[in-house]
C-alpha cells in the first residue's frame, strides 16, 4: 500500500505543478561537448560505445592486471517480474545516476552508489510486435535533461531524466509491417539518430534523425538504392541510382535493416551506419549487388546524404548483415604514418580496415577459422567468392519440394561475429573481437512478399564447428590482420567487450561470467558468476576515487531462438535480468 500511495502523491504533485511534464530542473544538462568528451571524462558514461567512435576503451587504470583480483560486487538490481530474459543493454552513468534499458522496452534510473531505483519507465507494447531476435534493447542515449531509447513497436521515446516521465514519443515506422527498434540511439548536434530493424520482413532500412527537443523528423535516409529520403518531412534525394544493382521493384522491399545503430567520428564529422542483409534471403530472386545492403555507409549528419559506402558482402546469400559497428581508430602504417581509419568485424568472418575519410578499402583479414563462402578479398575490396558455398537455385532443383540444393557453409547466418560490439584498446592498438565458430546447412526456396510476414525464402540449421567451443575472444592486430591471442569459450559469445587503461579486456559469457583478461596475453585474470548469461556490454567509470565496473546479466537474444544444434551448448542456462555493479574498494 505504502508504495502505491507514494506514487499517487508524486503523480498529483507533478500533474499540477508541471502539466508539461518538465522536470524539477535539478539535473545538470548533458551538452554536445560533454558527449564528445566522453572518452576522457572517466566519471561518467554518456554514450553507447564509451565515446562516439565506439572504441569501448576507458583510460581508467585503478583496476589493473594486479589489482583486478580484488574487484568485488557492490550491488545488484533486478529487472523484476517475469520479464527476465534477453538483456543486451549497455548502461549509461550520468551525475551518479545509472540509466539502463531492459527487455520489453523498459528503462530504469538507479542511484549508482546504492542501487536504489529512482524511476522505471515500462513502455506499453502492443501484442503484435515482431522483433526477429528476442525482445531485447541495447541501451539509451542522454542529452540535455532527457534520456532516449527506442522501443519494440518502432517508437523513439524521450523521458525526463529526473522523473522518467515521457516528454515526447514518436513512432518512426509501423510496427505492424515488421519494424522494431533495439539499437541504442546516438546524439549528434542536438539530434537523436537511430536505425531500425525488420529486415526479415522485407522492410527498407533507414537512418532517422530527430530533433532531440521535440522529436520532429530532421531527415531520413533509406539505405536501399531507389528509395527517396526526407529532409524536414519533405522528400529529398534518392539513395543511389534506381535499378543500378536491383531488378524491377525489388528495391521497395529490399531489406537492409539498420538495426544495430551507428557510430560517429567527430574528426571527419561522419556518421557510420551498417546495413543489414538484403531481402529476401534467397539471393537467386534478386540478381545484382543489391546496394546498399550488407554495407557500411558514411552519412553527413547535417544533411542525411551518403558520403561513401563500402559493401562487405555484395549480393549476400547467407544473411550476412553488414550492421556490425565501424570503429574509428588511428592506423599506424608500415611507413610510420598514421591514417584516419575505421575497422569492423563482419558477420561474414572478415575483419575490415577502411580509410574512414573516403571509405577506401585497406584490408580484409579473416578472424574465424572458416570462411567458406569467399577465399578472401581482392585489392579493390571485392570478395573472391567460392560459388560452391552459395545455396542452390530452387529453379534448378536439387532439394525436396521445390527447394534448391542445400550446402553446409561457415560462418553460419549468426555470423563470425554478431551484434556484440568489439573493443579497441588505445593501450595495445589491438581490437578484441567476440567471435563464434559455427556453420550451417542452408537451402533456398520460393517466396513472395507479404506485409508483416517473414520474407526469407530460405531454410537453415546451425551446427557448431568444434566439440569443445563455439565462442572465441580474439585479439586482432589491425595493421597486420594477425590474431595475437585467443580465448575459447564453450557457448557462443554474445556480449560486448570493454578495454581499459589498466591493460584489461572485459567481456561476459552465456555461462554467466563476467571475465577480465590481460590485454597482451589473453590470460584470464578475474571472473564473477552473475547467475544468468551475460549477453550485454560492460562499462567502467570512477566515483569518489574508486573504479567501478557494471554489466547487465540475463540470458536470451537470438542464440536460444535461432541456434539450431547449439541448443546442446546452451539449454541449461537459466534466465535472469539483473544489473551487476562491481568496484575495487579503496585501501583503508
Amino acid at each position, binding site marked *: *500500500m505504502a508504495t*502505491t*500511495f507514494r*506514487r*499517487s*502523491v508524486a*503523480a*498529483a504533485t507533478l*500533474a*499540477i505543478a508541471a*502539466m508539461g*511534464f518538465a522536470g524539477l530542473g535539478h539535473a545538470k544538462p548533458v551538452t554536445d561537448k560533454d558527449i564528445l568528451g566522453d572518452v576522457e571524462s572517466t566519471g561518467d558514461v554518456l554514450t553507447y560505445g564509451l565515446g562516439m567512435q565506439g572504441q569501448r576503451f576507458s583510460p581508467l587504470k585503478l583496476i589493473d592486471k594486479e589489482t583486478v583480483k580484488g574487484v568485488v560486487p557492490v550491488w545488484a538490481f533486478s529487472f523484476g*517480474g*517475469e*520479464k527476465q530474459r534477453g538483456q543486451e543493454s549497455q548502461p549509461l552513468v550520468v551525475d551518479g545516476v545509472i540509466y539502463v534499458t531492459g527487455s520489453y522496452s*523498459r528503462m530504469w534510473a538507479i542511484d549508482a552508489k546504492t542501487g536504489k531505483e529512482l524511476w522505471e519507465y*515500462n*513502455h*506499453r507494447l*502492443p*501484442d*503484435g510486435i515482431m522483433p526477429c531476435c528476442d525482445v531485447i534493447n541495447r541501451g539509451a542515449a542522454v542529452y540535455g535533461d532527457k534520456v532516449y531509447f527506442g522501443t519494440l513497436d518502432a517508437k523513439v*521515446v*524521450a523521458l525526463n531524466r529526473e522523473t522518467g*516521465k*515521457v*516528454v*515526447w*514519443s514518436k513512432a518512426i515506422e509501423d510496427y505492424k509491417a515488421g519494424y522494431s527498434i533495439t539499437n541504442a540511439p546516438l546524439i549528434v548536434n542536438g539530434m537523436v539518430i537511430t536505425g531500425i530493424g525488420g529486415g526479415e520482413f522485407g522492410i527498407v532500412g533507414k537512418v532517422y534523425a530527430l530533433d532531440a527537443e521535440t522529436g520532429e523528423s530532421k531527415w531520413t535516409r533509406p539505405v536501399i538504392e531507389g528509395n527517396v529520403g526526407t529532409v524536414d518531412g519533405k522528400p529529398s534525394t534518392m539513395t543511389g541510382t534506381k535499378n543500378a544493382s536491383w531488378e524491377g521493384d525489388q528495391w521497395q522491399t529490399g531489406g537492409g535493416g539498420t538495426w544495430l545503430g551507428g557510430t560517429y567520428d567527430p574528426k571527419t564529422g561522419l556518421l557510420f551506419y551498417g546495413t543489414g542483409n538484403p531481402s529476401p534471403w534467397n539471393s537467386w530472386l534478386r540478381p545484382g549487388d543489391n546496394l546498399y545492403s550488407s554495407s557500411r555507409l558514411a552519412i553527413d549528419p547535417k544533411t542525411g546524404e551518403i558520403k561513401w559506402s563500402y559493401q562487405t558482402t555484395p549480393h549476400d546469400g547467407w544473411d550476412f548483415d553488414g550492421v556490425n559497428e565501424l570503429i574509428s581508430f588511428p592506423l599506424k602504417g608500415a611507413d610510420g604514418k598514421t591514417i584516419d581509419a575505421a575497422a569492423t568485424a563482419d558477420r561474414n568472418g572478415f575483419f575490415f580496415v577502411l580509410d574512414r575519410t573516403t571509405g577506401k578499402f585497406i584490408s580484409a583479414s579473416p578472424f574465424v577459422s572458416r570462411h567458406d563462402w569467399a577465399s578472401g578479398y581482392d585489392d579493390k575490396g571485392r570478395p573472391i567468392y567460392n560459388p560452391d558455398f552459395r545455396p542452390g537455385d530452387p529453379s534448378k532443383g536439387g532439394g525436396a519440394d521445390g527447394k534448391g540444393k542445400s550446402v553446409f557453409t561457415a560462418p553460419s547466418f549468426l555470423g563470425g561475429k554478431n551484434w556484440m560490439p568489439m573493443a579497441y584498446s588505445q593501450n595495445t592498438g589491438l581490437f578484441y573481437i567476440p567471435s563464434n565458430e559455427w556453420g550451417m546447412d542452408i537451402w533456398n526456396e520460393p517466396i513472395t512478399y507479404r506485409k508483416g510476414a517473414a520474407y526469407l525464402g530460405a531454410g537453415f540449421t546451425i551446427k557448431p564447428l568444434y566439440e569443445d567451443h563455439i565462442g572465441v575472444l580474439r585479439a586482432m592486430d589491425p595493421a597486420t590482420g594477425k590474431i595475437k591471442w585467443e580465448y575459447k569459450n564453450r557457448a557462443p559469445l554474445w556480449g560486448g567487450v570493454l578495454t581499459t587503461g589498466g591493460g584489461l579486456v572485459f567481456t561476459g559469457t552465456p555461462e554467466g561470467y563476467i571475465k577480465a583478461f590481460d590485454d597482451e596475453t589473453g590470460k584470464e585474470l578475474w571472473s564473477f558468476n552473475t547467475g544468468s548469461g551475460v549477453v550485454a556490454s560492460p562499462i567502467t567509470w570512477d566515483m569518489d576515487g574508486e573504479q567501478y565496473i557494471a554489466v547487465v546479466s540475463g540470458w536470451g537474444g537470438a542464440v536460444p531462438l535461432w541456434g539450431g544444434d547449439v541448443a546442446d551448448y546452451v539449454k541449461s542456462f537459466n534466465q535472469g535480468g539483473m544489473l551487476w555493479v562491481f568496484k575495487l574498494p579503496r585501501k583503508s
Partner: protein
Amino acid sequence: MITRRALLGHGAGVAALAAGRAWGAAPMDPLQSVAWEDMRALLLGKGPVVFDDRITVAAPMAAEDALQVPFLVDAGALGRVQRILVFADLNPIPLILDFAPGRLAPLIATRFKIQQATPLRAAALDLKGTWHVAGQWVDAMGGGCTTPALAHGEADWTARLGETEARVFDRDGRRRIRLSIRHPMDTGLAAGIPAFFIEKVMVEDAGGILLGELATFEPVSENPLLTFEVPAGIGGDITVTARDNNGNIFRRKVALS
C-alpha cells in the same frame, strides 16, 4: 442518495458550524473511513479542511460493474474553486483525478475502477485555500483495479486506440460536453501489463487559450467517458487534447453550437 445524506449529515453540521473560520484541527470523518487521515495527509496537505455537503458527489451506493463506477462531482455551490480532487480511500491507487477547472464550470463526471468497498470523495480547494470535502461509500464486490482491461481480450487493442466520440448538451446556456476516448487505462496492477493510462486532458477554446485541465490517474475506467461544462459566453469550437503516460497524444475538436 438518502444513505449518502445520512452519512454526510454529521459532516454537514460540522461544516456549517465551521462557516467563516478555517479548520486547522482535523474534523471528524463523517464516512468513518480508516484511511481518511492518510488521505488527508497525502493528498490535501496541511491546509484547512471542512466537510461540506454543498458539493454534490453522485455515485451508486453499490457498484454494478467494478470496472465502471460512474460518478459526478459538482462544486458549483462553492463558487469558483482552484482544484477538485476525486479519490477513493481504499483503492490501491486512491487518487482518480485532479481537475483544475480554470474557466470551466467546477463540475466533472467520469467512471472509475473499484477494488473493494470504499469511500468515494471529492475535495474542492476554494480560492482562500480551504479544502471542502464531500463523499459517500460505494459498496463493491471488487477487483476492478487488478483485472486486465477488456481491450486485452481483443486481437489488437492498438487498432482503435485514441478514437473519440463527443456530444454536447445544452444546460440553460451552459454546454455540457460528454467525451469518450478509447484507451485501456491499464493500472499496472494486472499481472504482466504495465501501467498505461491517460494522465492529462486539456480543454482549449477556439483561440487556443486554456479553459481548464484535468489530470487523470490509473483508476479512471477503460475508455474514459468525461463530462465537463463550458459556461455561457464561450463560443466556437473547443479542442480537447489528451496525453497518456507513453506520450501518445489524442486531439478532438468539439463544436459548441
